[in-house]
């Protein structure tokens, strides 16, 4: 993945989350304050603007990820802002100074991304947060078996399962935790947006890979 493709991924993230704005708000209305889709929309729009201004000529994938995180944070605040920012900043370190990313680089990026989010999140598995997508993703990426591509494919599956599993969980973190048992039956909005983000990445990365192999 070239720096240009790396940036394209963030463009795609913006599009996918914009498409799911209403859906994410609906999910958040059941559990929180109904703004998750808006927050994502504001954040990714700011990222998109950065891609076209500050990052237009940037080729360092680490710097790109860093700026993505900071732009997102500055635009949204909220709890997702710091969580995402911490993720992107931690991931950025793993790909510092690279203008091109191998599948292995990307694997390292996501493992560190998840560590970064986790540090700030303090959410346990089963707390009904985006971590219920990220923990299984990390496990899959770190598994001993299969090629890197297979690990990513596994991780994408795991993300989807993790997202769906949040439905049955009782929330322990964030706004929805005040609901306790009343939160059961509703899918977590933050887990949903994180799944979209990650699956979009996997699709793009594997697609590129395939195109290159065919080439």
């Amino acid at each position, binding site marked *: 993945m070239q720096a240009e493709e790396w940036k394209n991924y963030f463009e795609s993230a913006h599009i996918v989350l914009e498409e799911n704005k*209403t859906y994410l*708000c*609906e999910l958040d*209305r059941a559990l*929180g*304050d*109904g*703004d998750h*889709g*808006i*927050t994502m929309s*504001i954040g990714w729009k700011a990222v998109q603007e950065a891609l076209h201004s500050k990052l237009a000529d940037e080729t360092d994938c680490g710097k790109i990820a860093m700026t993505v995180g900071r732009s997102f*944070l*500055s*635009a*949204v*605040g*909220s*709890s*997702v*802002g*710091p*969580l995402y920012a911490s993720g992107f900043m931690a991931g950025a370190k793993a790909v510092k100074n690279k203008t091109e990313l191998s599948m292995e680089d990307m694997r390292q990026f996501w493992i560190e991304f998840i560590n970064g989010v986790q540090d*700030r999140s303090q959410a346990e598995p089963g707390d009904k947060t985006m971590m219920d997508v990220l923990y299984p993703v990390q496990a899959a990426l770190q598994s001993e078996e299969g090629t890197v591509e297979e690990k990513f494919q596994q991780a994408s599956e795991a993300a989807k399962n993790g997202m769906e599993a949040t439905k049955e969980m009782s929330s322990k*973190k*964030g*706004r*929805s*935790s*005040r*609901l306790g048992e*009343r939160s059961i039956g509703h899918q977590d909005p933050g887990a949903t947006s994180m799944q979209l983000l990650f699956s979009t990445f996997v699709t793009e990365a594997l697609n590129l890979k395939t195109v290159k192999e065919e080439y």
Partner: protein
Amino acid sequence: MKKLINNPDVVVEEMLNGYLKAHSHLVRGVEAHSRTIVRTDAGLKQKVSLIIGGGSGHEPAFMGYVGKGMADGVAVGNIFSSPPPDPIVEAIKATHTDQGALLLYGNYQGDIMNFGMAADIADMEENIEVKQVIVKDDIASAPREEAEKRRGIAGEFFVTKVAGAAAEEGLSLDEVYRITEKANQNVGSMGVGLSPCSLPQTGQPSFNLEEDEMEIGLGHHGEPGVEKIKLATSNVVTERILNNIIDEMDIESGNEVSVLINGLGSTTRMELYIMYDKVESLLNEKGINIYTSYVGDYCTSLEMGGCSITLLKMDEELKPFIDAPAQCPMYTQS
């Protein structure tokens, strides 16, 4: 729900423009960040900087409480969202003398993360001493054993009033912190919701309530409450809420309290005063003295219907800070 706006994406910006223009003798923006507002006299007097903030949509909170005797600066977030660290850092920088800064905000995860990052940046990059007080007055939001999890609602007004007056007095950061934290430990609130609000960007109601239902203990972003109950009379609701607060806070006969009846947005003053009438009678019966009372919209949730009761347990040290004058765009006491 209908709103008189132009474009949901810029409501906060336009609101801030209007606010700064309307009250230019009391507050001003700062160049470094469009979401930072400070007192016109910020930085002129040696004092602890009191910085408040949080999501918008709670007006008069928080931006309305910047001014003499109250906060020095505010960071304004998107609707119901914590501001990011930048505007908080800029508020600290624009108001700071060399007495340190106190960050005061409600107990929400987003605010804790963003104010926390801002405190780190101010410390690391600007070498400013920063302390934080996190308001946790909503007794309905977690049981007493988990009081640390309780969120901040209208009681933040009282804590801000005390902090602002203490800072205005010229007390040291440690003292301002101690007194503010004392107010924080002695404040308790609980609310009731009758009708939802809607975010300008979705237009969707934040929760659904039947015509004959009300929600007890709800949050002030439209988060669902502790319990949905059948619409009851004001007296019944008031007694239930007040007794809860008194129990949770161990308030006893002979104690003295300040009272705040806060409207959430579309609740009439008439309803708030009817509630106050009952609060006063109940406190009277219990031998609890009222020191001073506030009735009105102090911390709203857009146009939500409903209100909350807050009690601040008074002692001799807190009294002068509650009595001190204040002059802010949306709150004046003389």
